[in-house]
């Protein structure tokens, strides 16, 4: 939720405000689109922090988990685990020790990423400025590196399982021999490139769409929070002196509350979608044709 008056001390222009908010805390300014000497400290920090929060909470419960009467926390954790387990079992018919824990991790971790959006947009960046850090982005799922980190790992698993279960020939055959096939060798040879053109892009687009769907939704959500914050940004403390200022403050708070609720829902939905698509891709990878 936006904090009105948050940046009153440094009344900047809307453009400066937005740009400031979409700049990462990095070790050095990136040169070009691909630059592996750069690290987004903020994304890495919050990503690991939330991994520790999720892993720590679930590990603490798992260590003390009893088959007796569960406490509230254990009940909650079991509820999440069983829900994920049922989602996996509905979609994935095979047996895998990996896919259910993977789904749980994705759902909880991404949900925690997305819920970071609900922390007042200027709160942590301003606190960071107090500590001498120029920029801070606290929602890891609005970082392309983070979402691609997830989707490419999932994609690598899909490749691994496809080759492991179908064999390299079977896996390649899925792209080369469908949907057009013929018993005639010459015709078949003609069909292969067409099949590849049709099938390969949709397969390769998977990690892209998986990452960008999450990124787009969460980035848009964050942008709307920034825009809501802009309502009173340029007025600063002067907003308290005029009637218009008060109206704007009330509108800002009301819209902020509504958007927070909506964004929490979107965050939950996107975490769920990311998990379900992961399960679907992996179950397709381990299906025999």
């Amino acid at each position, binding site marked *: 939720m936006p904090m009105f008056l948050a940046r009153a001390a440094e009344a900047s222009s809307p453009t400066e405000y937005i740009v400031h908010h979409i700049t990462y805390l990095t070790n050095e300014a990136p040169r070009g689109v691909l630059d592996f000497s750069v690290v987004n400290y903020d994304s890495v920090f919050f990503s690991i922090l939330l991994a520790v929060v999720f*892993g720590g909470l679930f590990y603490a419960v798992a260590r003390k988990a009893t088959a007796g009467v569960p406490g509230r926390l254990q009940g909650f954790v079991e509820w999440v685990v069983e829900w994920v387990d049922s989602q996996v079992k509905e979609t994935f018919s095979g047996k895998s020790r990996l896919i259910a824990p993977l789904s749980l991790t994705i759902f909880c971790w991404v949900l925690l990423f997305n819920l970071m959006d609900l922390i007042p947009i200027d709160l942590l960046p301003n606190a960071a400025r107090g500590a001498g850090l120029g920029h801070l982005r606290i929602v890891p799922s609005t970082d392309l590196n983070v979402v691609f980190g997830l989707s490419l790992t999932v994609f690598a698993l899909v490749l691994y399982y496809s080759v492991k279960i179908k064999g390299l020939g079977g896996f390649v055959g899925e792209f080369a021999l469908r949907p057009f096939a013929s018993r005639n060798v010459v015709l078949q040879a003609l069909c292969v490139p067409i099949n590849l053109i049709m099938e390969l892009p949709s397969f390769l687009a998977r990690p892209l769409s998986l990452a960008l769907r999450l990124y787009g939704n969460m980035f848009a959500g964050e942008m709307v929070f920034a825009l809501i914050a802009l309502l009173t940004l340029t007025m600063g403390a002067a907003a308290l002196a005029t009637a218009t200022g008060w109206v704007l403050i009330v509108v800002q708070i009301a819209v902020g509350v509504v958007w927070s609720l909506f964004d929490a829902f979107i965050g939950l939905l996107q975490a769920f979608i990311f998990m379900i698509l992961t399960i679907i891709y992996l179950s397709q990878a381990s299906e025999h044709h």
Partner: protein
Amino acid sequence: MNINLTLIIQMIVFVLLVAFVMRKVWPHILGAVEERTRKIALGLAAAEKGQQELAQAEKRSDVVLREARERAHQIVEQAQRRASEMIEHAKIAASAEGQRLLTAAQQQIDLEAARARDSLRKDVAQLAIDTASKLLEREIDARTHADLLDKLAARI
């Protein structure tokens, strides 16, 4: 907006986190859930069995109770029969004994009466003789008048 080392770090953290959850979290939590499910199933089965056993035991106890009641009834009946028999026996014995005592007493009485009569008769005879001898002033020969005296005694 660029792709950088963060991507690689994110992938490594992701893999480590999934490995951790897979080894240290998932099996324990789901294990606890499955263990509880098993326990509940066992508990329900045990409750079901217990109820069946209870029903059987009730049936059995009913049978035993009914048998016991019948047996008690029989015993009471038998006892009553035995008692009435004994009373009957006692009555018969008592009545026989009474009869016997009565008969013995009667006999005793008859005997006593006969003896008394006899002695009386003798006394009367003696008295008659004495009286007669006094009247006649002479000795009556007992032997001579024996049959006369006997007749007299028999008449008394």
